[in-house]
């Protein structure tokens, strides 16, 4: 008999509905698991056990009254970049270490309305800036498959928690790969929805034209249930899409026969681990065996995506993070000095090195004399990257590729070399630049560490991606492999 903390959302939801288990037992099992293993992994910044128990009791009453939804009573972790009213939201930054929002992010609020149980907040790279969760101002998170390795980032705490059975699911955010890459490194399933599919209200802004909220869970069926709860228009976010939300669970028919899948040749370049290449190639063969047609395609602007992203994202970051002035909320330098000096000290002491790097990079790219060569140029390249995808989707229904060229790397290996760190996300950044939906699906191991298959779809094709992932997961059990802890 498996432990309750090992259950998927789908399975736990069935057991709760059938009254085989109660949310309080399930929640206690998860809290005990956190107490047992998070000392080794550090995936949580805040754990709120008592509040979780109260929510679980309320969920049990709702279930007994026959008023439950599929997520009622299911324990979750929320990345500490998403506002939780009345509960600290630190963004893993010294700047917001004491910050307590007065409202919930829309995505969080929708899950709470469904009766999901909030266990606590997930560790991350400060303000979402990083690929390893080493940029947390508090502590690094460790990979449950090998505690000497990083869990990926920036939603590394969320991915590690789901992989280690410390959350039945988690909500993360993805600006350049921050859901998909940690999901890949930790061997779980992650979905970055189309830009605008999920409201960004209450997501602490990093790069507003790229940021998106999405689920991290055990499999595609779980991701479908979570996306169903959080997707849809929100009057509080003018960029949230008005399009009708389809029934994602209904789309999971497991049939990919005749589906045209494109393999972008630029996503199998130099610098890729041989083990990653082998696992991804074999996953593509498996999809072909399930009836999909495989076509090679080209996305010729791919090699410019890294530079394009690292101009656009820091530029937006430098504008967004201008709000941290030590006046309205957050850390505030209390020593001597005039207004400007206090502000400069506040930002020196409140921000970590990677945040400072990106704020300064953005200030540079937007500054007089450099704007045209950097920011304007990057926006033009953004157009070309979008057009690459548009052309490819005239011929294929979805793209299949690796999530990252590498598997989880040793803690400390890349932290002093920003460029080497940025290269880890070379295959996830273009998706954010184009605003497309994409998933990370476990597809094997390299040197004992998980490898993720990336599925990329056209605008609002989440249902199609979830079904491809579901078909693959019906035929394989990579997503069921769990680390021994």
């Amino acid at each position: 008999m498996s432990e309750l903390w090992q259950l998927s959302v789908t399975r736990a939801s069935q057991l709760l509905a059938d009254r085989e288990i109660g949310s309080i037992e399930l929640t206690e099992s998860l809290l005990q698991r956190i107490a047992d293993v998070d000392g080794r992994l550090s995936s949580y910044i805040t754990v709120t056990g008592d509040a979780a128990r109260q929510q679980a009791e309320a969920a049990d009453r709702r279930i007994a009254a026959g008023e439950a939804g599929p997520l009622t009573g299911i324990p979750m972790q929320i990345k500490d970049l998403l506002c939780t009213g009345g509960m600290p939201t630190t963004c893993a930054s010294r700047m917001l270490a004491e910050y307590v929002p007065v409202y919930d992010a829309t995505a969080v609020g929708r899950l709470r309305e469904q009766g999901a149980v909030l266990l606590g907040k997930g560790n991350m790279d400060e303000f979402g800036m990083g690929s390893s969760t080493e940029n947390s101002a508090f502590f690094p998170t460790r990979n449950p498959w090998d505690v000497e390795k990083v869990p990926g980032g920036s939603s590394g705490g969320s991915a590690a928690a789901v992989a280690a059975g410390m959350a039945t699911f988690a909500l993360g955010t993805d600006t350049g790969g921050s859901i998909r890459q940690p999901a890949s490194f930790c061997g779980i399933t992650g979905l970055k929805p189309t830009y605008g599919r999920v409201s960004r209200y209450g997501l602490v802004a990093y790069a507003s034209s790229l940021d998106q909220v999405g689920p991290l869970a055990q499999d595609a069926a779980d991701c479908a249930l979570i996306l169903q709860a959080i997707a849809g228009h929100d009057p509080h976010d003018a960029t949230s899409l008005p399009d009708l939300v389809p029934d994602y669970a209904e789309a999971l028919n497991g049939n990919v026969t005749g589906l045209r899948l494109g393999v972008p040749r630029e996503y199998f370049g130099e610098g890729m681990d041989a083990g990653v290449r082998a696992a991804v190639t074999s996953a593509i063969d498996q999809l072909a065996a399930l009836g999909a047609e495989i076509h090679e395609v080209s996305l010729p602007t791919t090699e410019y995506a890294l530079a394009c992203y690292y101009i656009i994202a820091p530029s937006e970051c430098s504008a967004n993070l201008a709000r941290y002035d030590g006046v309205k909320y957050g850390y505030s330098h209390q020593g001597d000095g005039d207004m400007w000096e206090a502000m400069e000290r506040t930002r020196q002491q409140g921000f970590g090195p990677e945040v400072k790097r990106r704020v300064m990079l953005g200030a540079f790219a937007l500054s007089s004399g450099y704007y045209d060569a950097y920011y304007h140029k990057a926006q033009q390249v953004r157009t070309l990257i979008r057009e690459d995808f548009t052309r490819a989707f005239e011929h294929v229904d979805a793209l299949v590729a690796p999530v990252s060229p590498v598997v989880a790397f040793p803690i400390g290996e890349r932290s002093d070399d920003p460029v080497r760190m940025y290269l880890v996300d070379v295959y996830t950044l273009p998706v954010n630049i184009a605003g497309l939906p994409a998933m990370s699906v476990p597809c094997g191991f390299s040197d004992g560490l998980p490898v993720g298959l990336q599925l990329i779809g056209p605008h609002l094709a989440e249902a199609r991606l979830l079904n491809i992932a579901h078909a693959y997961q019906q035929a394989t059990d990579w997503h069921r492999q769990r680390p021994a802890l």
Partner: protein
Amino acid sequence: MPIDPTQVQHIAALARISLTDAETEAFTRQLSDILDQFEILQSLDTTGVSPTAHVAGLDNVLRDDEPADSLPAGDTLRNAPRRRGDFFQVRAVLDE
């Protein structure tokens, strides 16, 4: 494109961040490395390509201008580092 410590200090001033000498030294090296990566963009011909600022495909999102309650002052000021009554307290903006 290499940048020098003076430029890094200038950028830091634009971004309102004080830097120690050690930070200035490290950021000069790291920002130069990153800017080197951007050189590749100059080899791509973008003549006549319109820039993309946004990918939501939405224009002029408007709503009716209906009065509604906003956050009460107490909530708005809850996280203020320094306040006086219902105001954020700031340091002197003008010289005395």
